[in-house]
């Protein structure tokens, strides 16, 4: 036995992850780190997702982010598929909440880079740039540029997705001269296969001699077969946000959200209940909340390049209603010959 290498163990399980540090380094700290890392990977925890996407499923089920009123038309042109290059002209008219507007948007995306920008008829530009450095590192910059003073905004952030944790740091309107601005750091760690816990700290420095920070705590519980997710978020000012999302079947998702404000000055709570149906040619969302609002949105796709949307909302407590209709027309840049037979099915001969 004396001739055999001392470090080699004959029954090493093959699924143990490779040591992050070279095992040849003899430092006790490195070996401790290696043992900790292999113990950690043996737990088999998965990445919990980013803090920003904590309630992503709920947001895509609820129609709060999709609702519109008045009339709108989106003419989008897909000029290239790989890399993605798309321009969109959007027109909106007759909304109760916003004036008529025209908006031009351009999107370019390949495997690493995502560039997006839109400009409205007043010349306000919104832009977004995502750069993926590797599988687990993504930097994002987004900005709002306006000719009006004080309406511009710049936000830079970096996401790191570890094996069983996610880290995000963010700076909003950082000033290089006096370091004012808003800085946010967040961390989310899988604790068990289902539960992830984390926190988000916001550090605010509106003027050089004034600074405050506050930390909110997050929890996310994912069902074992990933068809339901419950999240909770606690902010120190007494704001609690709890959500629940469940996928009932391939086509139906439901989500509930409860927002509680229990500050000394103000006590309030809003509950929202929503459902989303993904049908073959349409998507239907319905939502009910405790402020007395009932709303629905139907997106019906009549042809691959043409879809029609109709939305409505009734506020029973205020006795008000909103209605919206919209069309989305997508025109591919390629001629039908160029597209060949892969995209458009040939209509059956009469």
């Amino acid at each position, binding site marked *: 036995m004396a001739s055999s290498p001392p470090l080699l163990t004959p029954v090493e399980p093959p699924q143990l992850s490779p040591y992050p540090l070279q095992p040849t380094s003899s430092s006790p700290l490195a070996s401790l780190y290696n043992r900790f890392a292999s113990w950690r990977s043996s737990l088999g925890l998965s990445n919990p997702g980013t803090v920003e996407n904590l309630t992503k499923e709920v947001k895509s089920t609820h129609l709060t982010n999709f609702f519109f009123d008045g009339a709108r038309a989106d*003419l989008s*042109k897909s*000029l*290239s598929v*790989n*890399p993605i*290059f798309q*321009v969109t*002209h959007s027109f909106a008219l007759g909304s109760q909440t916003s004036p008529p507007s025209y908006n*031009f948007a*351009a*999107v*370019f995306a*390949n495997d690493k880079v995502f*560039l*997006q*920008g*839109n*400009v409205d008829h007043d*010349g306000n*530009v919104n*832009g977004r740039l995502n750069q993926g450095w590797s599988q687990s590192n993504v930097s994002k910059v987004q*900005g709002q*540029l306006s*000719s009006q003073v004080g309406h*511009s905004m710049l936000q830079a952030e970096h996401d790191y997705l570890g094996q069983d944790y996610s880290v995000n740091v963010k700076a909003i309107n950082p000033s*290089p*001269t*006096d370091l004012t601005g808003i800085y946010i750091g967040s961390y989310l760690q899988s604790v068990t296969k289902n539960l992830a816990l984390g926190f988000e700290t916001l550090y605010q420095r509106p003027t050089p001699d004034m600074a405050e920070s506050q930390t909110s705590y997050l929890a996310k519980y994912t069902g074992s077969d990933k068809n339901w997710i419950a999240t909770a978020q606690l902010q120190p000012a007494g704001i609690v946000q709890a959500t629940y999302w469940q996928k009932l079947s391939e086509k139906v998702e439901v989500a509930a959200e409860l927002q509680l404000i229990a500050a000394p000055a103000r006590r309030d709570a809003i509950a929202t209940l929503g459902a989303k149906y993904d049908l073959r040619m349409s998507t239907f969302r319905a939502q009910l909340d405790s402020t007395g609002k009932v709303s629905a949105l139907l997106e019906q796709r009549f042809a691959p390049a043409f879809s029609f949307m109709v939305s409505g909302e009734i506020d029973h407590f205020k006795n008000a209603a909103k209605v919206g209709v919209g069309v989305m027309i997508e025109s591919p*840049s*390629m001629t039908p010959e*160029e597209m060949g037979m892969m995209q458009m099915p040939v209509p059956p001969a009469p």
Partner: protein
Amino acid sequence: MPSEETKERIIKAVELGRTVLHYGWIPLIIYVGYTRSNPQPSLIKLISPLA
């Protein structure tokens, strides 16, 4: 801490960068998309909503 002069220079540079981005961001995306996309689209299709 940087001196007042440096600070002023930084503020000026930030302001200039902001203006460049304001007017250049959309053209940049269109330029990048136009040169990299495959097949290359015609310019009129790019700009006009109806073509």
